[in-house]
């Protein structure tokens, strides 16, 4: 059983790295590229993100009007899923990654599109941003390090469990990491739009609730950057000089779903 768990988890981690580590080259946006991106946007994105990119398309209104996450408002120019520090904008690669991988349960992946088309949409979406968020940010240094050095072991998982409680992840995710917080109603968690956060959004035993991806490095990224617009903060400063602890925590979180990732 333990061997099976380890095998599945390793497959999950490697698979995640392969799927999420998008390698593509963006060409310099020209009016033609942006026009092509708009055609693709109008055809496939407008239903959720709206004509002006305010996240107010008809599908967003009917599908996620009363809960988080709502379709991104591109005019704000900040994204939950990114590689940059809390409060910063995004990299172009962040946008490309989300278009490619989608958001489990919310946004379909467009990995079937030619890379060129995905970059065209990136170029168009950036024209919808407010002027102070059009520049390309630098990712957090922790992302430039690349792969992790902490092996996935039972000991690492146990250390991760201790970090989980030491850093009070249970305050929102619950003692059993199922969003099982006794006074959840009193906590009244909301996103930046005032949409309520539900216990299922915080269930770490269900990898489908990992909207930023369920691969090891995706979870590591979420810990480091936080999810802008939600109560999930960045732990980059808390883990500074203790990056191994972050990987232990990632291993613990992965163990909660027994490697049954999407």
């Amino acid at each position, binding site marked *: 059983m333990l061997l099976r768990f380890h095998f599945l988890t390793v497959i999950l981690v490697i698979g995640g790295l392969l799927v999420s580590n998008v390698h593509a080259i963006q060409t310099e946006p020209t009016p033609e590229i942006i026009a092509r991106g708009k055609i693709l946007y109008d055809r496939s994105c407008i239903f959720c993100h709206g004509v002006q990119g305010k996240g107010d398309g008809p599908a967003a209104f009917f599908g996620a009007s009363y809960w988080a996450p709502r379709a991104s*408002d591109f005019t*704000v*120019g*900040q994204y939950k899923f990114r590689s940059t520090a*809390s*409060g910063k904008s995004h990299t172009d690669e962040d946008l490309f990654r989300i278009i490619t991988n989608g958001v489990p349960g919310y946004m379909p992946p467009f990995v079937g599109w030619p890379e060129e088309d995905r970059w065209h949409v990136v170029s168009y979406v950036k024209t919808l941003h407010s002027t*102070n968020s059009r520049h390309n940010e630098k990712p957090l240094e922790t992302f430039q390090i690349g792969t992790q050095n902490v092996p996935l072991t039972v000991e690492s998982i146990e250390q991760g469990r201790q970090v989980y409680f*030491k*850093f*009070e992840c249970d*305050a*929102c995710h619950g003692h059993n990491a199922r969003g099982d917080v006794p*006074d959840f109603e*009193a*906590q*009244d*968690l909301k996103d*930046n*739009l005032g949409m309520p956060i539900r216990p299922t959004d915080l269930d770490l035993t269900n990898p489908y609730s990992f909207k930023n991806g369920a691969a090891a490095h995706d979870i590591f990224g979420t810990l480091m950057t*936080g999810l*802008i*617009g939600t*109560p*999930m*903060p*960045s*732990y*980059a*400063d*808390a883990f*500074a000089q203790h990056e191994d602890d972050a990987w232990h925590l990632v291993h613990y979180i992965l163990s909660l779903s027994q490697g049954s990732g999407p």
Partner: protein
Amino acid sequence: MQKFPPMRLLSTAVIIVSSIMAFWVSPSFGDSVGSTIVGRVTFHGSIPPAQQLNVNKDHDICGLTVTVQPLIVDESTHGVRDVVINVEGIESPTVERDSGVEDLTNKGCAFIPRIGVVRVGQILNLRNEDPMLHNTHIRMGKRTFVNVAQVVDGRLIPRLVTEPGFMSVNCDKHRFMQGYLIAFDHPFFAITDATGQFRIEGLPPGRWKASIWHEILGTIQTEVTVPERGEVSVNVEYPTP
């Protein structure tokens, strides 16, 4: 240029500027650093009772309720604490990195200061002195300035202030914690002390518009005439409702 949030905007007609005095000094005194506005913001009305907010978590540290009184008036002078004064419209060089540093500390399940002012280019040092996790979540409208976990005995977290604006400060873990941070892209602002006094230095001569904001008393606007040199005394009284 920083604008205060849309609140109860009081007409300039109800502003009581109790004294405006310009003390002209010789050019050799004070050199060429501009003029200074000093003054006090007062309120003589009745003070609403403090708010009792239920504590949703960590009762052993925060207690069962917290008391919040946004309107703090000095008994002897009637000066109002934490009023923000902003002299607008003065050309000021853009500062990418100021030498100044301001602190924002989680202490006793509250933000200290509760109302903070900062200049673009300054470093905001985020601290946690409580024996539990806080997250300092600072937002400007729909945009997030920062949302960081502040663990027990965690290190100081410095953040460069890059945009002017009115920001709300919250801890998502403790919903009763609320503060405000106001960032300016110029140096001509101040916040009143415990006796309602403020001081703004280095002002160029001219007739400038000033905004005066308090969390519950609202925003009032007035004009201030600043001489070439010297000190102008401007006392403002909030009208009683």
